[in-house]
C-alpha cells in the first residue's frame, strides 16, 4: 500500500489504456476494455448533452417574449419534447453510470474488467442504435408529446412518436445491460480485501442505481412499446375511446420514470461522497448511513410514483400514502446532506474545482429536495403541479445536482482519465459562471410557478415576462460557462501539465494505480488493507504532495 506520492515529479504512465493495445479508431470501436467503453460513453453522452443544451437555449430564447419570438407553436412543442427526451434518455441516465461508472467501478473493486465485457460493448452499441433511431425520428418531424408521452395525446398525434419511443426502448436495454453488469461485477469481482464494508461509496450508489435500472426499465420498455403499438395499430390499451384507461399509462410510466429520477441522482451522490472526502482529506462521517441510504432511496423510490398523479382524480387515500412515502425519500437525502456537512468538521478543506461543484451541488440538492418534499404535502402540489415550479424543482435536482456532480466527476477524475491536469484558475471561472448561471436560470422559474405559469406554454400572459427574461439571461450565462469548461478541458487534453498518479492526494482505490491506468488496471493489485475513505493514518510528512505542476 503506497502512501501519498512524496515529492517525486509527477509521471505520465507510458503504458496505459489509451495506447494499449493500439491507438487507432478501430481498436476503440471493437474494444472490450471497460475504461475505453466508459470514455466512449462519456463522449457520446456529452454530444447528447450539447444537443439537448441547444434545444434548451432555443426554448429560453423563444420564451423571451409573451408571443412568438423565433418559432411557431408546433416547432416549440417539438423542441421542448426533444430537449426532454435527449437530456433524460441520452444524457442523464447513461452519463454517470455508463460513463464514469464503467471507467471507475472495476478499478475501485480491484478488478481487471467488468464481469461481461462483450455485454458491455453491446450496451454501448445499443445506446448508439437507440440514439440513432430517435435521431432519425427527430430529423423526420420529431414528436410533440413532451418526454412524458401522456396518452391519449401521444397515441393520436400525427408526429413521429413511434421512432422516438422505439429509440428510448432500445436505449433502455442498454441501461439494463449496464446495470446487470455492474451488479454481477460488484458481487463477484471484488479483489481480496475489499469487503462490503470497505466498498467505496461510489460503488454503493452505483450499485443501488443498477438495481433500479434492472427492475424499473423493463416496465418502461413495455409501456413505451404499448404506446407505440397503440399509435401504430389502435389496439386500444390506453385509448379511452376504445375502453382503455389513459391514467393506467401514467401509473406505468411513473413506475419507471420516478425511480429513473433516482437513476439520475444516485450516481451524482456517488460522485459527491468521493469528492467531499478527497478534498476535505477526511474519512466520511457515517459510512454506513451514507451507503445504506442509497439502497433506501432505491427501495422507497419504487413506491412513490403516485405523487405525479395527485390531480388526476386519484383517490385521496392513494394520495396520502404516496405523499408520506415520498417524504421518506427526502429523509434518505437529508441523511446524506447532514453526513457530508459533518464530514467537513475538522477536515483540511481544499477549494479545488471539484469541491466548488460540491458546494453548488449541496445548495441545489438541498433546495431541490426541500421543494420536492413540499410538493409531497399534496395540497401545495395541487397549485404547483404542471407549473414552472415543478420545472424548477426537477431542474434543481437534475441539472443543479446531477450536472454539478457530472462536472465535479469530470474534473476530479480528469487526471485519471487523461493523465493531465486542467487549469485550476479557469476551473474556478467555469464553476462560478455555471453555478451562478444556474441560479439565475431556475430561481425565477420557482417564482413563475408560484405565480401560476403552467409548463409547456409557448405563449404566456405578459405579467410573466420579467421573470422569463431573467431566466433566459441566466441560461445564457450557463451556456458561456459550459463553453469555458469545454475549451479549457480540451486545451488540457493536449497541453495540460502531467498529473501523476494521484494529484489530489486522494485515498480512493482508483488512485492506487497510475494515471492513465494501464490496460489491466493495476500493474500489481494492491492488498487493499484500509478503507477507501480513510485519511487519519496518512504518513507523517508529505511535502508538496499531489500538487502537480501548473501551467
Amino acid at each position: 500500500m503506497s502512501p501519498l506520492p512524496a515529492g517525486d515529479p509527477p509521471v505520465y504512465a507510458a503504458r496505459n489504456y489509451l495506447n494499449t493495445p493500439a491507438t487507432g479508431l478501430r481498436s476503440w470501436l471493437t474494444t472490450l476494455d471497460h475504461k475505453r467503453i466508459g470514455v466512449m460513453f462519456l463522449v457520446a453522452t456529452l454530444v447528447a448533452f450539447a444537443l439537448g443544451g441547444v434545444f434548451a437555449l432555443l426554448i429560453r430564447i423563444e420564451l423571451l417574449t409573451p408571443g412568438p419570438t423565433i418559432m411557431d407553436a408546433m416547432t416549440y412543442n417539438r423542441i421542448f419534447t426533444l430537449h426532454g427526451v435527449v437530456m433524460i434518455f441520452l444524457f442523464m441516465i447513461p452519463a454517470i453510470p455508463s460513463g464514469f461508472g464503467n471507467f471507475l467501478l472495476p478499478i475501485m473493486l480491484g478488478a481487471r474488467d467488468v464481469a461481461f465485457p462483450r455485454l458491455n460493448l453491446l450496451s454501448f452499441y445499443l445506446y448508439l442504435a437507440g440514439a440513432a433511431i430517435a435521431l432519425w425520428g427527430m430529423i423526420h418531424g420529431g414528436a410533440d408529446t413532451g418526454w412524458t408521452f401522456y396518452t391519449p395525446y401521444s397515441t393520436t398525434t400525427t408526429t413521429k412518436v413511434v421512432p422516438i419511443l422505439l429509440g428510448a426502448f432500445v436505449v433502455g436495454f442498454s441501461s439494463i445491460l449496464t446495470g446487470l453488469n455492474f451488479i454481477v461485477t460488484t458481487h463477484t469481482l471484488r479483489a481480496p480485501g475489499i469487503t462490503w464494508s470497505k466498498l467505496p461509496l461510489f460503488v454503493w450508489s452505483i450499485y443501488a442505481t443498477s438495481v433500479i435500472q434492472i427492475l424499473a426499465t423493463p416496465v418502461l420498455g413495455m409501456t413505451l412499446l404499448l404506446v407505440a403499438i397503440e399509435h401504430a395499430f389502435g389496439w386500444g390499451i390506453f385509448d379511452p375511446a376504445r375502453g382503455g384507461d389513459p391514467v393506467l399509462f401514467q401509473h406505468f410510466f411513473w413506475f419507471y420514470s420516478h425511480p429513473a429520477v433516482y437513476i439520475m441522482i444516485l450516481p451524482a451522490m456517488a460522485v459527491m461522497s468521493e469528492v467531499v472526502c478527497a478534498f476535505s482529506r477526511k474519512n466520511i462521517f457515517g459510512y454506513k448511513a451514507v451507503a445504506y441510504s442509497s439502497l433506501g432511496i432505491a427501495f422507497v423510490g419504487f413506491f412513490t410514483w403516485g405523487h405525479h398523479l395527485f390531480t388526476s382524480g386519484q383517490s385521496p387515500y392513494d394520495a396520502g400514502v404516496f405523499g408520506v412515502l415520498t417524504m421518506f425519500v427526502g429523509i434518505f437525502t437529508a441523511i446524506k446532506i447532514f453526513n457530508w456537512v459533518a464530514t467537513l468538521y475538522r477536515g483540511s478543506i481544499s477549494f479545488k474545482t471539484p469541491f466548488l461543484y460540491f458546494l453548488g451541488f449541496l445548495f441545489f440538492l438541498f433546495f431541490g429536495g426541500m421543494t420536492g418534499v413540499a410538493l409531497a404535502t399534496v395540497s401545495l402540489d395541487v397549485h404547483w403541479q404542471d407549473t414552472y415550479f415543478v420545472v424548477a424543482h426537477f431542474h434543481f435536482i437534475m441539472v443543479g445536482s446531477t450536472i454539478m456532480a457530472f462536472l465535479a466527476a469530470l474534473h476530479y477524475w480528469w487526471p485519471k482519465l487523461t493523465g493531465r491536469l486542467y487549469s485550476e484558475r479557469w476551473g474556478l471561472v467555469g464553476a462560478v459562471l455555471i453555478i451562478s448561471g444556474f441560479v439565475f436560470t431556475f430561481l425565477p422559474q420557482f417564482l413563475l410557478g408560484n405565480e401560476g405559469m403552467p409548463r409547456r406554454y409557448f405563449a404566456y400572459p405578459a405579467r410573466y415576462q420579467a421573470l422569463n427574461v431573467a431566466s433566459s439571461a441566466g441560461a445564457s450565462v450557463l451556456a458561456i460557462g459550459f463553453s469555458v469548461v469545454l475549451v479549457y478541458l480540451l486545451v488540457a487534453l493536449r497541453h495540460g501539465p502531467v498529473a501523476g498518479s494521484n494529484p489530489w492526494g486522494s485515498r480512493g482505490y482508483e488512485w492506487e494505480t497510475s494515471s492513465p491506468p494501464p490496460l489491466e488496471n493495476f500493474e500489481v493489485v494492491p492488498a487493499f488493507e484500509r478503507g477507501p475513505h480513510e485519511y487519519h493514518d496518512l504518513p507523517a510528512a508529505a511535502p508538496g504532495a499531489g500538487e502537480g505542476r501548473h501551467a
Partner: protein
Amino acid sequence: MHSAVAHHFESLEKQAEAQRLGMWLFLATEILLFTALFAAYGVYRFLYTAAFSEASRGLETWLGGVNTLILVTSSFTVAMGLDAATRGRTRRTAGLLGLSILLGAVFLALKAFEYHHHFAHGELPGRYYTGPIAGSGGALFFTLYFLITGLHAIHVLIGMTVLAVVAVRCWRGAYDAEYHVPVELAGLYWHLVDLIWIFVFPLVYLI
C-alpha cells in the same frame, strides 16, 4: 486453468458464479417485462369483469391445457439434459435438448392453430375486434391476450434458438462434466419461458 476462463476471472467457479448471477438478474428483468402486461390485464379484468370472464370462457381451455403439459414436459427434458451434461454425456444432452426444441415447436404449432381460430371468429385486438362481446371489454381482452401470448411466443422462439445453439455445441463436444454453464443457463431461460406460461395459462384461460 480451464480454457473457458476469461482473463479477468480468477477461476472457473468464480466465472460460473458470475454467469449464473447475471442470468438470474436477466430473468428478473424478463419477469418485470411480463409483469407490466399482467398488471394491465389485472386492471382491465377489474374494470370489465363480465366481458373478460365471457371472453376467457370462449377460449379453448383444453388446447391451453395440452400446451401447458407440453411445456412442462419440455422443461423436464431440459433438466434431464443438464443432468446428463454434469456426467459428461454431452451427446445425450444434445439429444434431449433437441427433444425440448421439438416440444417447443409443437407448442407454437398449437398456438398458431389457436390464433387461426381467433382470426376466423373476428377475435382480434382493439379496433379490429368483430367478435360477439358487446362493449370495449372483449376487444381489450383480446388486445391483452395477443400481447401476452404473442410476447410469450417470441420468448419460446428465442428459447428454442438458444437451446439449438447449445445443443449443437454439445454435440460437437464444446462442454464437459467440468464446464457446462451454458447448458445450465440455456436451461434456466427455458424454465423461465415455461414458468411464465404457468402464470399465463390460469390468468387467461381459467379464471
